């Protein structure tokens, strides 16, 4: 009997199968290890995966069709439900798409406020992903610690917009209200406490021998293959390609901030984990800079066609009442045109391809959902690995069912 060891993983498996029997294993649609509703039909030889066949669409909600029937400001709540771990990025990405189409210039302060909110969302998304990698390797503690931090981020969202998960944050043209003093105090407290607890989480896993043995070499992908598969975000960067929309096509004044785009080398689970860990630190760094350099000014652009007037004006200003009515009824004039706008979502390039024919709703809206595009590489990445590594590959790719199915 001959044995071989998988690169770096420490597992020693027999090359001979027990009796050569191939089995079909149904992983999902509802399985605690998949962290979402999607099915994988695995063909396994013992523990080893010969073939994986993903079936998706279990929570498809026809967002693109819905969007063709809703006025522009009513599409924001739909975007919440794409990647629901970082809804604010989706919301703000959509606002910026409409602003690009209409030609709205938002004040610098709005850009900085948006940067703070988007980076908070990125932190919470990466925290979920990385702590879940911990759970899947058997380390539950870090998950509990990091969910406390995520809870604090949700409280920050609550201070800005009143909601926690599906945030519907901001408006076309800016924010519905300025950051209040409670938010700023809470944010300061969060920033002060985060580094210490994040360091604990980091020391728990990053250089932990057991964890490293488990994740190094699990589900690797080369830079060439990752580009072929149109990977983006941390998964592409873990493979060694320094593509980040924030750095390459800066939006919302990202060019004003100093941050590093971390990259990995092997594109395996460990690299994806490390890239996300570093991005969390960079996000904290960006938030601190944005707070420090926060310009004075308005928290919204002066675009009465799109931005609701203050409620108290409705009873004594005719214009305000007209604008209010037009916006609420979705009768705003939108120019014709087609626009593609991309933001760096927590999972990669989140793009909005919008075609307007001048009607009250988009003529066509297509979401470029990073999850949907990179999840198709999963069969290739899982092939030949053991089942437990395939679970890790899936959780480290951070496949979010809402974004996958749209």
């Amino acid at each position, binding site marked *: 009997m001959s044995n071989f060891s998988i690169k770096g993983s420490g597992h020693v498996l027999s090359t001979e199968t027990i009796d050569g029997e191939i089995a079909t294993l149904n992983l999902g649609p509802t399985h605690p290890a998949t962290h979402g509703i999607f099915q994988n039909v695995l063909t396994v030889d013992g523990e080893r995966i010969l073939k994986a066949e993903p079936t*998706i*669409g279990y929570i*498809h909600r*026809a967002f*693109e*069709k*819905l969007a*063709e*029937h*809703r006025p522009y400001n009513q599409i924001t709540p739909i975007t919440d439900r794409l990647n629901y771990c970082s809804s604010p990025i989706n919301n703000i990405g959509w606002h910026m798409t409409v602003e*690009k*189409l209409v030609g709205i210039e938002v004040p610098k302060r709005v850009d900085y406020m948006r940067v703070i909110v988007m980076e908070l969302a990125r932190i919470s998304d990466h925290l979920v992903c990385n702590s879940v990698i911990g759970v899947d390797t058997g380390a539950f503690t870090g998950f509990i610690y990091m969910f406390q931090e995520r809870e604090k981020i949700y409280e920050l969202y609550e201070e800005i917009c009143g909601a926690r998960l599906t945030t519907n944050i901001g408006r076309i043209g800016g924010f519905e209200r300025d950051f209040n003093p409670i938010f700023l105090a809470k944010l300061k407290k969060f920033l002060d406490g985060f580094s210490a607890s994040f360091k604990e989480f980091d020391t728990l896993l990053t250089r932990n021998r057991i964890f490293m043995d488990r994740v190094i070499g699990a589900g690797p992908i080369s830079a060439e*293959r990752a*580009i*072929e*598969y*149109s*990977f983006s975000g941390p998964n592409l960067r873990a493979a060694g*390609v320094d*593509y980040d929309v924030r750095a*390459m*096509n800066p939006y919302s004044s990202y060019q004003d901030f100093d941050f590093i785009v971390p990259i990995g080398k092997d594109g395996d689970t460990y690299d994806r984990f490390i890239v996300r860990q570093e991005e969390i630190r960079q996000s904290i760094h960006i938030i601190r800079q944005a707070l420090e350099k926060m310009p004075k000014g308005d928290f919204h652009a002066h675009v009465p066609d799109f931005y609701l007037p203050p409620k108290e004006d409705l009873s004594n200003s005719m214009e305000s009442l007209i604008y209010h009515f037009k916006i609420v*009824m*979705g009768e705003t004039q939108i120019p014709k*045109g*087609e*626009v*593609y706008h*991309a933001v760096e979502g927590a999972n990669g*390039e989140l*793009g909005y*391809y919008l*075609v307007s024919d001048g*009607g*009250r*709703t988009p*003529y*066509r809206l*297509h979401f*470029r959902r990073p999850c*949907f*595009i990179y*999840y*198709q*590489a999963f069969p290739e990445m899982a092939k030949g690995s053991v089942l437990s590594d395939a679970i890790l590959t899936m959780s480290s790719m951070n496949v979010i069912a809402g974004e996958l*199915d*749209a």
Partner: protein
Amino acid sequence: MMQTLENEHLLLAIETHLGDMPTSQVDTFGMLNIEVNRLQIVSIVKFLKESLEFNFLTDLCASHYPEKLGAEFEIVYHLHNFIANKRLRIKVALSENDIFIPTLTGVFVGANWMERETFDFYGIQFQDHPDLRRILNMEDMDYHPLRKHYALEDETRTDKDDKFFGR
């Protein structure tokens, strides 16, 4: 230092490759838009990938214009050149009666699911696609839901008046 790629140079290269100018070229919101026909699409994308470093297929989708007779469907490709940081949009018009287009999976593996999604929602037939099945909808559906004449809600409903809301 990033090299730059101007629209003129790009168009010139495309023209040289195709032998004639693409039927339409406009720059919308900083992105060059070109239209080619379906026989040219694979060759042009391959050329852009191999010779002009358009290595990244950002997106692939379709849209439906029922009133444009003979060109009811439009397949939209977004390509990205990371080195010069240049994005490009390519469109191919298709007739409702002849909705066949060669697959791009031979050039970009990632086109696989994007084309399946386009097939699922618009019924576009991608020729030589390795696995052209529905992806988000059920296998036994007999319509393609993003086509314009497919109503969002059951049209026999009388309890809801969408006169003021909805499109």
